[in-house]
């Protein structure tokens, strides 16, 4: 993938570079009869022979720093090269700002590589400067709005450096772009939980927001899951918020048969039964009807699961008798 190999005509092997003539390359010791052998290019072998040599002599020099760049380009997943590079940066007192630029370029090429994001994080920790992190992760998320590495780095930077200020706006935009973006919904919860807080008013606001989004796309698990998340902070639980329950009832009577709606109604029944609300319309019969409808018509792929859930409600019924 990253091995440009022999196609690079301007490339000069380290073994042919006069300024490296004082170094004896160290070949890989893969034993006498290795397995899973990668048929590396000559360039790869050359670079890593010299990398092993400087590692062995613990050489801390500009040329070593340059060599790690070549080594990383050939295999950005080599964590030892990255670690040695960091040790070189410190030993040489290299300008870390230019290193930030460099790793940004590498991230753009390999946005799903663990090592590059780790390198970035260490640099930001050293500099104690997170000015560029929101933009960097924003760019990565433009390419792939669900890139787990980018989200992880973003959450870390936000939490460590308190960068919550404009995060809700960012989340809103992502959800507007794609209401099914589960990562964005998760980030919404993150901002609420760590920054805006779950005051009664905020809970109500988030419920309104989520119900709007569900109205827009009803069969969206991400929004339904978020609604459950918000209701964790409502002391009346899943079943006690009349705005939520009447919304669900209305959807249902308007013929919406999204499995997420129906599952939500089943869970409301479960909660009402557990709370001992005997006269509630959310009872075992209703749950059983919903399970039956899911199993036979609206969510057939989970037919056995819904029958299994129905079993639980049948037990509730027989306990009542």
């Amino acid at each position: 993938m990253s091995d440009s190999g022999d196609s690079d005509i301007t490339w000069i092997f380290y073994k042919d570079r006069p300024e490296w003539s004082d170094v004896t390359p160290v070949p890989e010791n893969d034993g006498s009869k290795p397995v899973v052998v990668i048929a590396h290019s000559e360039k790869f072998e050359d670079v890593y022979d010299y990398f092993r040599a400087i590692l062995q002599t613990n050489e801390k020099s500009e040329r070593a720093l340059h060599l790690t760049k070549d080594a990383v380009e050939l295999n950005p997943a080599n964590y030892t090269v990255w670690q040695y590079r960091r040790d070189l940066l410190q030993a040489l007192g290299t300008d870390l700002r230019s290193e930030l630029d460099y790793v940004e370029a590498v991230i753009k090429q390999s946005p799903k590589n663990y090592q590059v994001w780790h390198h970035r994080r260490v640099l930001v920790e050293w500099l104690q400067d997170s000015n560029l992190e929101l933009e960097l992760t924003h760019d990565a998320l433009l390419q792939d709005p669900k890139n787990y590495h980018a989200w992880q780095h973003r959450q870390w930077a936000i939490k460590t450096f308190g960068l919550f200020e404009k995060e809700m706006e960012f989340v809103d935009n992502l959800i507007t772009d794609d209401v099914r973006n589960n990562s964005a919904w998760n980030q919404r919860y993150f901002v609420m939980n760590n920054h805006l807080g779950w005051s009664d008013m905020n809970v109500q606001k988030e419920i309104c927001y989520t119900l709007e989004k569900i109205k827009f796309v009803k069969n969206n698990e991400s929004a339904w899951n978020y609604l459950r998340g918000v209701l964790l902070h409502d002391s009346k639980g899943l079943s006690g918020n009349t705005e939520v329950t009447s919304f669900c009832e209305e959807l249902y009577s308007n013929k919406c048969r999204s499995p997420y709606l129906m599952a939500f109604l089943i869970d409301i029944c479960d909660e009402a039964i557990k709370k001992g609300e005997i006269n509630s319309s959310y009872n075992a019969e209703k749950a059983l009807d919903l399970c039956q409808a899911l199993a036979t018509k609206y969510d057939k792929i989970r037919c056995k699961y819904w029958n299994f859930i129905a079993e639980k409600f049948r037990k509730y019924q027989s306990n009542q008798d």
Partner: protein
Amino acid sequence: MINEENKELAHRQHVKYFMRFLNILPSSLSSHDSTRVTIAYFSVAGLDVLGSITSISIELRSRIIDWLYLLQVQPRKSDGDMSTCGFQGSSTINIELDNANSHYRCGHLAMTYTALCTLLALGDDLSRVNRKAIINGVKALQTEEGNFSATLSGCESDMRFVYCAACISYILNDWSGFNVEKATDYIIKCMGYDYGIAQCPELESHGGTTYCALATLSLTNRLDKLSEYQMDSLRRWLVFRQVDGFQGRPNKPVDTCYSFWVGASLKMLDILHLTNYNSNKRYVYETQDYVVGGFSKWPDTCTDPMHTYLGLAGLSLIGESGLLEIVPTLNITRRAYDHLKSLHQKWDSEL
């Protein structure tokens, strides 16, 4: 790609596929240079689940075993320090280093875990494994938070390595390097508002990390630390991952590997049988290359050893014929697991 022949297991082709990977790989795979042990694991474990471990000749078997042991990092000669001990993923940094920089040559939890599984599948007796040293290496990698770093030399720490550390401790039958309480707390902190489990606290729930978390709880006998409500909600989150095959997160595309990650999670929670096996199977077979062997994550894309092994392991979980049973926690065959149990007995009798 759904044609008649692609509804059945291309058994012979998959055997050939793995045998090729055990030998030589093209230079296009250079970016896997530091993780060759995992390729060995997927290939050997793949042959094992295919019931074809005997396709590996005695000569090749000893080559693989000798090569793996070459990657075992031993205690530092000068002072016996064991914090770097474990298996390396390849011989790229397999060189003698001075005290000052000996930490660059260090074990990696995922490589140690997959090396041990490979040795078990090959029937090795682990007598050349420096158990005490490896456990000390594991211990050196647990963080304050309770999770584990991959290596001593500058790596991220997350749920994947909690799982690897738990497997290593289980296989070596020694938990002295693994603080179970701390790890359990970490896992519970990673449970999201949707009751799936994430790589780190507050990140998005994910099928792969949920597997790592559940397998760890299972190996440490801590599944009961989840409340009944958490358990039921997690089951719900997991069964909702089925589309035809399985996806790793809500509203993400289906991918062959989640037939294992999510399938094994459901199996550990005793409800895999409530999913739709036929749809699952049909999807996985859509990603099979019937001609040259291998599975890919999506239909008509490139196959790779990881998706090939996990595709087979996922099929094994739902009882596909022609495949050996998989132990969902350790991700090895029952055959390899029984061998491990006999080693445990032997070690116990030696105490």
